[in-house]
């Protein structure tokens, strides 16, 4: 750290030189290590260029863009309904959640009233996707920490959620189900009962997972005090979601800027004050129980019959209209900024993705930690590279 003190900080170094490969003078013991883009723990195609001194991380520069698919530009040459399937491909672990900001933004631009039943269906599936996404997180995180079994347990349960989504939406991972004004078709006749059955099953299993994962002594030894993310730093970088709530800031768009059926539901925002990987994990794990609570209430309140899709006006917002709408997906605030030019295609659509912002805080958490800690930190912030690169 003494050598870097005279040099610009890690982030500044990364900005000046795209590769970051230059060596620091007087630091012959630093080894430059490429973590990724093909590495078991990078959750996709992230590349982190790290300087390691023995086991100690001295520098870290995340390099992104290996999965860039140009979604924002593609939106400009497609009509609004054609944009929805592209949003699925951003955060492919919880595909259904990504469709919502686009739908909400356009609905608000056109002044479409969403039927109450559609609101509840959306909320139920939105939270179910959150559970699926968090299950993937706990599984892969434990895999990062060296435990293989929780991964298989988590994927067994996620499989059940995907089956429920498949029966309703027709697709498992990229459902393309939410649409402007509601949902694309009515849900599967037994969906609500199946979800209730699944939640009963999951609730019994979650205590087992808790003992295997966040309550396990080795897990706590690996995560407590590791990867401190200061709340001010987190806010500066735009970190949101459980990562921000793990740093003690209770910012949750479901409460603070509610949409769909969330205003009618009673739940609490899971905040932890430890600032470390363990707090982030704990904040995420508690959301399992909150999501179960939300879904149970939504199922009870959901109207048994009624329209799920209103009669829509022509999907042509007036020229110059613009709208930014963000929702709280599993990883934080996923926002979309739509600008209309009077045609049936958006003039500009800008995605604000949570993992992209979270990744900016990575060097702050990495530098000074052990190499093993770096993996534990990378797992704890739960990034999806499809959404980082878009």
């Amino acid at each position, binding site marked *: 750290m003494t050598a870097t*003190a005279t040099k610009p*900080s*890690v*982030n*500044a170094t990364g900005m000046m030189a795209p590769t970051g490969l230059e060596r620091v003078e007087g630091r012959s013991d630093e*080894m430059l*290590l490429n973590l990724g883009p093909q590495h*078991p*723990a990078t959750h996709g195609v992230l590349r982190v260029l790290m300087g*390691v001194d*023995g*086991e100690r991380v001295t520098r870290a520069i995340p390099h992104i863009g290996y999965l860039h698919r140009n979604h924002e530009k593609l939106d400009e040459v497609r009509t609004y309904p054609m944009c929805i399937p592209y949003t699925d491909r951003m955060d492919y672990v919880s595909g259904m959640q990504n469709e919502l900001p686009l739908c909400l933004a356009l609905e608000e631009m056109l002044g479409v009233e969403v039927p109450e039943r559609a609101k509840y269906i959306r909320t139920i599936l939105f939270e179910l996707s959150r559970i699926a996404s968090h299950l993937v997180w706990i599984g892969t995180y*434990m895999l990062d*920490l*060296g*435990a*293989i*079994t929780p991964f*298989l*347990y988590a994927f*067994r349960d996620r*499989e*059940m959620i995907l*089956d429920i989504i498949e029966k309703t939406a027709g697709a498992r991972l990229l459902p393309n189900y939410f649409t402007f004004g509601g949902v694309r078709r009515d849900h599967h006749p037994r969906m609500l009962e199946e979800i209730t059955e699944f939640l009963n099953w999951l609730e019994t299993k979650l205590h087992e997972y808790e003992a*295997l994962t966040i309550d*396990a*002594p*080795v*897990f*706590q*030894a*690996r995560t*407590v*005090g590791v990867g401190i993310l*200061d*709340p*001010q*730093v987190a806010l*500066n*970088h735009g970190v949101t979601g459980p990562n921000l709530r793990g*740093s*003690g*800031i209770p910012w949750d768009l479901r409460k603070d800027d509610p949409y769909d059926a969330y205003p009618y539901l009673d739940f609490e925002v899971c905040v*932890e*004050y*430890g*600032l*470390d990987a*363990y*707090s982030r994990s*704990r904040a995420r794990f508690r959301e399992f129980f909150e999501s179960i609570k939300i879904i149970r209430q939504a199922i009870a309140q959901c109207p048994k019959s009624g329209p799920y899709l209103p009669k829509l006006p022509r999907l042509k917002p007036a020229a110059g209209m613009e709208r930014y709408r963000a929702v709280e997906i599993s990883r934080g605030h996923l926002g979309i900024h739509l600008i209309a030019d009077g045609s049936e295609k958006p003039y500009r659509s800008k995605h604000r993705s949570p993992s992209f912002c979270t990744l*900016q805080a990575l*060097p*702050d958490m990495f*530098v000074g930690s*052990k*190499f*093993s*800690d770096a*993996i534990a930190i990378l797992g704890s912030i739960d990034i999806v590279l499809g959404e980082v690169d878009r």
Partner: protein
Amino acid sequence: MSAPVAKNAIKQSKRDLETANALFKVNAEARLPLERIAAPTDRHYRMRMAHQGLLNANPRKSGVLNAVIGYAALFGAAHIVLILAFQVIPALLTNGLPFPWTGFGLERNSFWFNVIYGVLSPVLAFLFVAVVALINILMLRKYLAKVQNRYGPLHNGPSGSLQTVYDALKLVSKEDYTPKMVEETIFTLAPVLVFVSAFVLMAVIPFAPGWFFANVEAGAVFIIAAGTLGSYGVLLAGWSMNNKFGLMGGMRAAAQLVSYEVPLSISLLSVCVYAGSMNLTQIVNAQSQIWFALPLFIPFVIYLIAGLAEIKMTPFDLPEAESELVAGFNTEYGGMRFGFFFVAEFAELYLLPAVLAIFFLGGWHMLPLPETWVANLLGREIQLYPFGNVHLLGYKELFVYGVDGSIWRNIFYSFWFLVKGALGVYFYMWIRATLPRFRDDQLMELCWKGLIPLALVGLMLAAFSKLVPAIGTILSVLVGGAFLVLVIRGALFPTSKTASSNVGSSSSKPSSEVHS
């Protein structure tokens, strides 16, 4: 010009239509009713349903039957190799065969006997390891799969029994590839070194009285020394491959193996102190009265934990931590070179519980029931066997039959020895399926601050127990049990959130200034 073409085209299309109609009719008749298509006939669909608890997990066979068949094959094959190695071949070399031609007529332990048997014994040892490995790896994979809600090998051979064979064939048939930029001599030598260090332990393992390849006087020291050799192989492998992950893996392995040698050696030496011998056969014989796991409970616990670190297994699998170092010290190895590491790993996995059984669990003795035992408890004599000096069933040892020194008796002895080894392997696999991985500093902390001081206490208690058996045993169990409870409850590590909660306070990190 175009009219006939058009006519032909119309004719052709009519014919196509007829064919299509005919085909469609056939298909319509052959088509299954909708409910039969929707029924879960597809195998993978069944599996998915089974995961959800909607179907019986394995509809074809009961797992218990497979397990019984598997264990029968495992112990049967192992015993055939053992009898071949320790009875048939020595008999062939000497005049021991029950035929008119009674063998080569060499004196036992004569020069030529030793030369020929010495050349043959590595082959026989490898045969034993191979046979045990082939069956036991399958059983372990099935066991791990059961823990993890999977099926394990299914498709090759009945119940996937040929999977290990295919895996071995795959490794052998792969290209023997040496990457550029590696230190070639060491790169080639390292896997062999690792393999040999694990494999050479087979030489001194006594399976039953008289069933060993070499009766080394200082067998305990041999085991410690041979184990240490492996850390050289791992370190050299990591260093020679010119790969950064490999280098880090090699360094981690060197630090870990060298550190954990210390408590491991001390715990084995405690046994030597208590048994009064370093010869493995004599150590086992000393346990005919009581398993050493009881009076030497601390060394036993330490061996359980440090042994895990010695074979680089979860939670101490840092040298090859997949999610951190890709594959650690064997990153650049492929084909049979990797196979050497793999076989060495399995041999270690099997030999570690075997050594554990020899030193702590009575070796080949079935149960720690002494022939005659009058316990002296607080000055009162207690007769353990109310019907005099007769064992259960009237035999000298429980579940061991036959005359002393006969093949029949040795088969029973080695059977119990193998059972103990197998149970140990399952114990380690259970840990592997459950625990995450430690960090390197926690690993070192556990060794230097936890295990080594405790091992020294254990050594002192072992010496004390030799003088005053009853009090020493009680002390040992108390201290060791307390330690075990502490480990299990995680009291050595932070269990509560200790990170300070300074929410709202502004950061003083230099990196945040860039963005604020």
